[in-house]
């Protein structure tokens, strides 16, 4: 391993601009003549718009106001949901329209009613306050569990009973038979709490129109600028694809919430032409709370069937998934194909059946958020396994071990074919690191202090590296999920790598350069990674689902293969030896037919000056591209162990230690991988203990600022004890599995399993706030007194 190659903890190339304040995020960009947009948003969860009165702004030639009527007049298409799900009866999902500006009706607090555009932000805000909107307020339906009930307000005429689809996966008859023969059945009811993503950079967009070239530019906070361009062009119809440039510059975190194509982006691009000047919009934090796509929000009943010895026979789950007031870009896929296929966990479960009702409510749209479906699945599986072990009186670690899948490949009953893993290796290492054997003594010590100590496991699996295009196409995806790369070698031997992935914190500028540096033997400083601009980079699919290593880097790998093949040809001509005798190692071209050698930059120069070969023999230049379509998902896995101590008098719950052992296959940069694990755990702990979106029964978002929505802070979290094992992934050339979501997937179950272990009962929901824990601890005390 070289100091900058695969596996080295290289310090990040991108950091210098961030630590010196020279990053360039969308809101840092101002365009000449720019105007500012402010959105008039619905204060009601469900209402008919009777009248929009902008007469107070009459005669103001410095203010533009546009409403849904203008959008309709210009035939601007609605926002789309790009994944078709069919119900179990074969009917397609029932989706209502999703206009960029409301057409007569609003469906959640924060829904877009009008846009006001003025010379300055302050003027636009002042003008927005002059607009009077008269609403006919309707009763709202906000509760996931009951929104399908008879008599509930109907949110979209197209979706009777507020039901988008009733989907299922698995063999129901086989599962029913297994349950009928089971010696023991464990049943649980779970709520997977609704979360608000809260990337620290609020969303922003700048639309621009160049009348001379009849071309648009959109600067936006996006994880996938090409997908944004495709949707804005092909579906929303604002501009032809080749006349729309989408630039996602530095992006301050995404976590899924910046995958989607939002109304504000549509409006800024469209309005730029109408206004004749660039239009900039930047969300304030409350707008982010109201109108960014939220995450999770499942209500689930699940059961596990076991034989007398505790071998799992079958699992079944029934879930209601809240998709909010409209279907966001990929929302339909999250509680279906990103969820139910993960319900086998790390376990050999012969039969699984899952049914999912996706429902509309008068709340913000819900879509993928870090983990997307997989945290929900892991929470179901790992709560079931923990509760089952307790009910059977078995050690939770050994109960899991007894049910682990031990040979690969392993076909689960729910689509997935796991290709590689060693689940016992992760468990053993985690048990050792967490000093599990002495947890009894630590519990006794805590008890002596009047505290309650608990330990919780989470043995998770996730499906990453999305995904084989044909496979996802057969499941309803509207796009392919390959990735693209181009490796451009310059005449001096420096290199630009153009990737369809997008980095918004993951460190691609470093890790992708490590790959190039290692394979072409050039110093890492000679490699620049280019991403996030549709005018510079070939079409690509972007970054989400922990796919950029497994899929994005694989495309670069394949492009490098082609560069090497071509460079060897060039070297053959220059060295005057047959090309098949040319070797390339550590940046040096050599041949057994000569004792002359060439460096990589020397060959690069020869490729461009083309003096040693004719155009008939070889094309000049050294630039190659590749599209990589994976053959399978990747299956990162691991064991996280959380140990907590509760003060039953106050409910204060302190995480005493956190052990994480993950198998991500090949690690490109272990420093960055560990950072991804840390951040994921923090978000998972946030879900388990702190965070939760709360809507009032009327549909008002009660958690719409950092004063109401509890973000994890430094003092809420411990230092994390993180380690890795490795079984390389066989379905991509580097053996990478992906690491971006693991912590957020593993953590919630580990925390709740620890808290319920301490409490001695299972009755606590996420977020387990101090108040919730205190109440639950009182119940424990009552229970103990009664016994």
């Amino acid at each position, binding site marked *: 391993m070289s100091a900058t190659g695969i596996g080295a903890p290289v*310090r*990040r190339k*991108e*950091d*210098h*601009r*961030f*630590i*010196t*304040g*020279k*990053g*360039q*995020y969308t*809101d*840092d960009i*101002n365009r000449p003549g720019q105007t500012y947009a402010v959105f008039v948003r619905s204060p009601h969860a469900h209402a008919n718009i009777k009248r929009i009165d902008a007469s107070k702004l009459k005669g103001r030639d410095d203010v533009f106001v546009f409403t849904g009527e203008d959008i309709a007049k210009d035939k601007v298409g609605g926002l789309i949901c790009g994944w078709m799900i069919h119900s179990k009866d074969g009917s397609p999902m029932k989706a209502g329209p999703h206009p960029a500006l409301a057409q007569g009706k609003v469906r959640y607090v924060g829904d877009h009613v009008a846009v006001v555009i003025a010379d300055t932000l*302050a003027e636009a805000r002042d003008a927005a306050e002059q607009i009077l909107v008269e609403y006919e307020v309707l009763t709202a339906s906000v509760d996931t569990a009951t929104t399908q009930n008879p008599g509930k307000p109907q949110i979209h005429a197209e979706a009777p009973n507020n039901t988008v689809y009733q989907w299922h996966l698995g063999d129901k008859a086989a599962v029913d038979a297994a349950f009928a023969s089971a010696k023991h059945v464990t049943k649980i009811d779970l709520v997977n709490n609704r979360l608000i993503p*809260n*990337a*620290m*950079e*609020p969303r922003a967009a700048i639309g621009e129109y160049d009348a001379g070239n009849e071309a648009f530019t959109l600067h936006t906070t996006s994880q996938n600028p090409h997908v944004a361009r495709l949707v804005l062009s092909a579906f929303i119809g604002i501009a032809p694809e080749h006349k729309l440039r989408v630039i996602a510059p*530095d*992006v*301050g*975190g995404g*976590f899924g919430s910046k995958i989607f194509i939002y109304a504000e982006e549509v409006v800024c691009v469209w309005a730029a032409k109408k206004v004749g000047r660039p239009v900039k919009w930047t969300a*304030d*934090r*409350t707008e982010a709370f109201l109108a960014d796509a939220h995450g999770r929000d499942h209500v689930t009943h699940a059961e596990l069937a076991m034989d007398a010895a505790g071998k799992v026979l079958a699992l079944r789950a029934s879930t209601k998934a809240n998709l909010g007031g409209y279907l966001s870009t990929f929302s339909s896929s999250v509680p279906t194909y990103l969820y139910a296929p993960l319900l086998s966990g790390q376990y050999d479960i012969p039969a699984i059946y899952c049914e999912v009702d996706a429902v509309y409510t008068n709340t913000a749209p819900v879509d993928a958020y870090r983990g997307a479906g997989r945290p929900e699945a892991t929470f179901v599986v790992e709560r079931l396994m923990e509760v089952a072990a307790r009910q059977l009186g078995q050690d939770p670690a050994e109960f899991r071990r007894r049910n682990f899948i031990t040979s690969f490949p392993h076909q689960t009953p729910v689509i997935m074919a796991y290709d590689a893993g060693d689940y016992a290796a992760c468990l053993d290492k985690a048990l050792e690191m967490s000093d599990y054997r002495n947890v009894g003594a630590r519990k006794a010590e805590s008890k002596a202090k009047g505290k309650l100590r608990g330990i919780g496991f989470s043995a998770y699996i996730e499906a990453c590296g999305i995904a084989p295009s044909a496979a996802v196409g057969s499941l309803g995806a509207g796009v392919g999920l390959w990735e693209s790369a181009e490796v451009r070698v310059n005449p001096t031997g420096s290199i630009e790598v153009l990737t369809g992935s997008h980095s*918004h*914190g*993951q*460190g691609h500028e470093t890790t992708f350069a490590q790959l190039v540096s290692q394979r072409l033997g050039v110093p890492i400083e000679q490699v620049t990674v280019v991403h996030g601009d549709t005018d510079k980079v070939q079409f690509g699919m972007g970054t989400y689902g922990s796919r950029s290593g497994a899929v994005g880097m694989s495309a670069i790998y394949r492009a490098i293969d082609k560069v090497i093949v071509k460079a060897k040809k060039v070297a053959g001509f220059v060295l005057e030896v047959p090309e098949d005798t040319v070797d390339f190692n550590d940046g040096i071209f050599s041949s057994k037919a000569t004792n002359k050698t060439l460096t990589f930059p020397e060959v690069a120069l020869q490729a461009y000056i083309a003096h040693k070969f004719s155009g008939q023999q070889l094309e000049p230049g050294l630039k190659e591209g590749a599209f990589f379509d994976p053959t399978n998902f990747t299956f990162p896995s691991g064991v996280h162990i959380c140990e907590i101590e509760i003060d039953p008098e106050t409910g204060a719950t302190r995480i005493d230690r956190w052990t994480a052992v993950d198998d991500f296959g090949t690690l490109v940069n272990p*420093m*960055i991988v*560990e*950072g991804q694990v*840390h*951040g*994921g*755990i*923090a*978000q998972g702990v946030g879900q388990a203990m702190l965070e939760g979106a709360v809507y009032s029964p009327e549909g008002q978002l009660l958690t719409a*600022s*950092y*004063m109401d929505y509890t*973000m*994890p*802070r*430094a*003092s809420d*979290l411990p*230092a*994390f004890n993180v380690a890795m094992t490795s079984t390389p992934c066989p379905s991509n050339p580097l053996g990478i599995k992906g690491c971006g979501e693991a*912590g957020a997937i593993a953590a919630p179950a580990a925390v709740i399993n620890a808290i319920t272990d301490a409490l001695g009962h299972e009755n606590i929901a996420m977020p387990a706030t101090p108040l919730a824990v205190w109440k639950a601890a009182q119940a424990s005390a009552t229970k103990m007194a009664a016994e």
Partner: protein
Amino acid sequence: MFFKSRKDDRPAAAGGSPGSSTAPGRASVHMTVNGKTVSGEIDPRTLLVQFLREQLRLTGTHVGCDTSQCGACVVHVDGRAIKSCTTLAATCDGATVTTIEGLAQGGELHPMQEAFRQHHGLQCGFCTPGMIMAAVDIVNRKGGNVSEAVIREELDGNICRCTGYHNIVAAVRAGAAAMSGASRRQAAE
């Protein structure tokens, strides 16, 4: 809006005192930002962060929440860390302001910047300027031998969504030690 560099830097009163040339409804501010004197005529409701970002184009200071909760906007005013998203620029008239852009001296990174890079204390980079400015302030107040527990407590006003704080805490510890080492070296010289 105008900018000029002034050698003899006497701040003028905000809001325009009688006899000054400030236009009605405008406030005039003068401050020293990253060692340079700047002045401007502003809408009195202009926030310090807006003045820095929009007028001075110092976009390293970020707005993450508008409610003083997240700390992406932390800058130093007269040597103390403050949240520039809820500070009126006019109230900083006459003040000395340091932003993330002013931390590195003579092309050399500040020890705290270097520590964040070395310890992978940042991912997306959006909270980072505020984190680093807050961290320098912690060391200024608490000294170089600051414990993990104190750092976690003191970072209460800064939210990071990417790192889980693990590496930020490591970076602040290392940066604190490096800062006190540097100041000891300076004292010895």
